[in-house]
């Protein structure tokens, strides 16, 4: 099937017209278990790519490897042509590839605003000696505070900006983590289950934020189990199972792929779970 994103037919490991991230032969073994075994993967620039797959498929491990939070057994990958294998995680973030975590890591005993300011890059006051001389960093601080206020408004957290992050609900922490990641103006944001624990009303606005990111030229890669989100906002879907990439393509096509349905979505992917349960009960009778 032809499309605008891949070169030629969409297939696991296919080449992209304009990739931002290219990974080759990335494997990670935990003892005898191969958690990740990716031959070739390209993430298209300026697009929203969803990474889906059953629990234990290796999605988060792949995230950890690509962002330097874990070391691969083998493999190499590059971001905008820059080799990233062996680069420590903080340098990966500085290059413009910022991630969030599946288990939210809000810095609880810092205020929401301090959390946001921490996300900014190149604050000179983060140097030990410069920190002691306020004029060296106060104007930059004012600038990032304005940016943080804008972002918090977009994420509806502006009323909470002086509260400790510990005082936020689980869903609000997810939002804060995402907003904080955006403080660095990343080129690629990698969101690990951004929707987990977020209520339906917020989900809608979160989807809008992600679409806005794309509008502003940011590439998005996210792991998600919420199929509505995957269907609605992603331009490209990568399916992992047992550490391997088993399918790739535009959402409408991938989600009709029989292998994907069997491995992950299940036969009742499009049915309301309530009706499935009723049907099952009836069949038993």
């Amino acid at each position, binding site marked *: 099937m032809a499309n605008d994103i891949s070169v030629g037919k969409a297939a696991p490991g296919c080449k992209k017209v304009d990739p931002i991230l290219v990974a080759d032969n990335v494997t990670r073994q935990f003892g005898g278990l191969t958690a990740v075994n990716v031959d070739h993967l390209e993430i298209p620039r300026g697009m929203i790519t969803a990474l889906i797959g059953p629990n234990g498929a290796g999605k988060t491990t792949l995230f950890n490897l690509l962002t330097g939070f874990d070391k691969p057994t083998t493999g190499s990958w590059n971001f905008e042509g820059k080799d990233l294998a062996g680069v*420590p995680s903080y340098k990966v973030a500085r290059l413009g590839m910022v991630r969030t975590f599946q288990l939210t890591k809000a*810095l609880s005993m810092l205020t929401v605003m301090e959390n946001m300011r*921490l*996300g900014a890059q190149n604050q000179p006051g*983060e140097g030990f000696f410069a*920190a002691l001389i306020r004029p060296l960093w106060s104007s930059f601080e004012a600038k990032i505070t304005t940016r943080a206020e804008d972002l918090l408004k977009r994420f509806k957290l502006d009323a909470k900006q002086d509260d400790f992050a510990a005082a936020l609900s689980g869903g609000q922490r997810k939002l804060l983590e995402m907003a904080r990641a955006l403080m*660095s103006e990343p080129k690629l944001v990698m969101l690990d289950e951004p929707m987990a624990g977020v209520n339906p009303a917020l989900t809608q606005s979160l989807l809008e934020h992600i679409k806005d990111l794309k509008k502003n030229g940011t590439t998005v890669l996210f792991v998600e189990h919420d199929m509505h989100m995957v269907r609605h906002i992603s331009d490209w879907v990568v399916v992992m199972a047992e550490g391997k990439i088993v399918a790739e393509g535009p959402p409408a096509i991938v989600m009709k792929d029989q292998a994907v349905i069997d491995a992950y979505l299940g036969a009742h992917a499009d049915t309301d779970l309530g009706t499935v349960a009723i049907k099952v009960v009836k069949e038993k009778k």
Partner: protein
Amino acid sequence: MDWSLVIGNAAAELISPTTAAYALAAVGLAVHFGYTGLLNFGQAAFMAIGAYGFAVSVLYFGLPFWGAVLASLLASVVFALILGIPTLRLRSDYLAIVTIASAEILRYIVSTTSLASVTGGAGGLSAFAGEFYAMNPFAEGTYLFWPFDVTAKDLWVRVVGWSIVALATLLVFALMRSPWGRVVKGIREDEDAVRSLGKNVYSYKMQSLVFGGALGTLAGIIFILPRSVQPGNYGTGLTFFIWTVMLLGGAATILGPVVGSMVFWVLLSLTDGLLQGLVNQGVITFLTTDQIGPVRFILIGLGLMALVVFRPQGIFGNKKELQFNG
């Protein structure tokens, strides 16, 4: 019982150089634990480096006062690097084990007989502060008022000690409201999150270890200026007293360690005076005067337990901002 003596002695502890030294060491520990989340159980080692670094530089290498201060600070930086390079990449519990062990190693090294010509062995070192007291600008005589009345020599060491405490406190205050302080506080909360935001966590932890350690080293110098260097002083007990002082005031607070040190020493002196008086007057018959010393520390221990249970954030701490999260 002579109440004025008991209370006078206790009040005099408020400004004693030992109180200043403990306060400064606790400020350093607050940088490590309270702000950065580093579990340093070897603050006694940094104090020992201050004490021995200074005394050995003066007595063995014949360095002048400032040279000896610089040499101790340099030694403390080297020690922090040796400690930090292998351990700061690991989880914080490992730092706790390594620091407690290295403090003990250091104490055994300075008390070995084969090094007695340098470190004085088990006997320690004395008569190294001559140049410091020669710099005393105060003329002979008695200064201040009861219960703080002191000789010119005592006044000099108190002025210097507390000035350093004040400077260190200001420095920590400035750092902790700066973006640098924000990064280390972030590391205390979750270092992976801070790493994901592009900060070199390892380097920040090292800076914090070196800085807090240097404060501990200065504290070690203040501690020995009015006394001799005794290797027995630098056991794990000292580390735990510094922890007590810090937790008493509040781990992530600016003035907490200073007030904690004052409370700690006033209470020790007060319980000592009271128990002595009560035993001498035959009110308490189940203790001898020799047993009073240890009993004071039992009481302090009970006090600390009560503090942890009823006011875990310390005297000044904001309960919302920091409880004991190691």
